[in-house]
């Protein structure tokens, strides 16, 4: 087909996307939170002493950390779906969560005698933590990747990886309400492994599904 003929066809095609960009991301966000919540409550649910636990600084920190991760990844995911809107100036925000965590780990090492470090780091739930964060996050990750397909990510692997970080932050926020290992030492090791799994899956999903 000649290019000028193609242009005639494009000009005549006035069909709009069924869902406007302004509404699709809020819908996807709601669906992602809902799916994570369903998996969370159907499998593990919150710890029995969640009310008292929320008053301790270590538990509060877990939520600050996981929400900071999600909040820093979200605008980058959104920007990366639009060609030409460079997400790089937002990338430094991704350091916020790791820096918060580094500060918390340093504080914990000062506050707790060294013979207790290993016990706190290994905790009781390390295996569940590694498994459940990806399990809760995989549904939201699929929803975010599907929504990215509606956009036009010009760096599919990067978009997928950041989508994995966003799903990680969301999944870990739920998981943190269940897990009784509250030390930043535990969070720094076992949460991070779960995040790495979701980020890797996101990058792979980006490579496989975000071609357009």
């Amino acid at each position, binding site marked *: *087909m*000649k*290019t*000028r*003929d*193609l*242009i*005639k*066809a*494009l*000009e*005549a*095609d*006035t*069909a*709009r*996307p069924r869902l*406007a*960009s302004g509404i699709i991301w809020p819908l996807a966000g709601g669906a992602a939170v809902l799916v994570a919540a369903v998996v969370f409550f159907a499998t593990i649910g919150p710890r029995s002493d969640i009310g008292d636990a929320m008053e301790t600084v270590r538990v509060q920190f877990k939520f600050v950390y996981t929400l900071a991760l999600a909040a820093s990844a979200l605008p980058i995911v959104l920007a990366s*779906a*639009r*060609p*030409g*809107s460079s997400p790089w100036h937002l990338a430094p925000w991704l350091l916020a969560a790791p820096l918060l965590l580094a500060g918390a780990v340093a504080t914990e090492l000062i506050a707790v005698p060294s013979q207790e470090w290993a016990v706190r780091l290994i905790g009781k739930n390390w295996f569940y933590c590694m498994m459940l964060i990806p399990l809760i996050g995989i549904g939201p990750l699929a929803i975010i990747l599907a929504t990215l397909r509606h*956009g*036009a990510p*010009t760096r599919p692997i990067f978009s997928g990886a950041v989508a994995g970080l966003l799903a990680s932050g969301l999944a870990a926020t739920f998981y943190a309400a269940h897990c009784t290992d509250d030390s930043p030492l535990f969070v720094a090791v076992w949460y991070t492994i779960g995040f790495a799994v979701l980020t890797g899956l996101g990058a792979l999903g980006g490579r496989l599904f975000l*071609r*357009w």
Partner: protein
Amino acid sequence: MSSVTGKDEDDLSRLLRAAVAGDERAYADFLHRIAARVRGFARRKIVKGGIDAEDVVQETLLAIHLKRHTWRTDAPVLPWVYAIARFKLIDAFRRRGQRIELEIGDFVETLAAPQPAEAASERDVTRALDGLSPGQRSVVSAISVEGRSIGETARHLGMSETAVRVALHRGLSAIAKRFGRN
């Protein structure tokens, strides 16, 4: 960026805004001007051969069309266009097993050098239309190659206008998908 490019940017943004609001004339004008720019960009980048610059132009136009909702009407339009063109060009190289690095600075000089003339070789009409269902093919070729309007095509093929519109949109989406595979 030169003032010529700045004026072009303003013109093109205005055209695409009008197009988004439903002005088909403005949309055709926009697409022709973008085609000329992307042609200059692709011809300059394809030095080794094996890739037809006009394929990259058509693939980029299809992508621009199908992804036009990702342009924010208050954002500059050329960075958006060139990000899509670069993505499609890299994709074309990737499919042929070649790797290419394109820096943003690379296309600044091509901004001023649009190439309005299509390659002299007659593009193979059947190639792009091959993968379509018979119904889609007759609708797309009536509107593109034969230059009929939606209404004329509907009467000519004995279909409703809505059915013509649906077949046209699905046909174009199918052509865009096919480009990515071969």
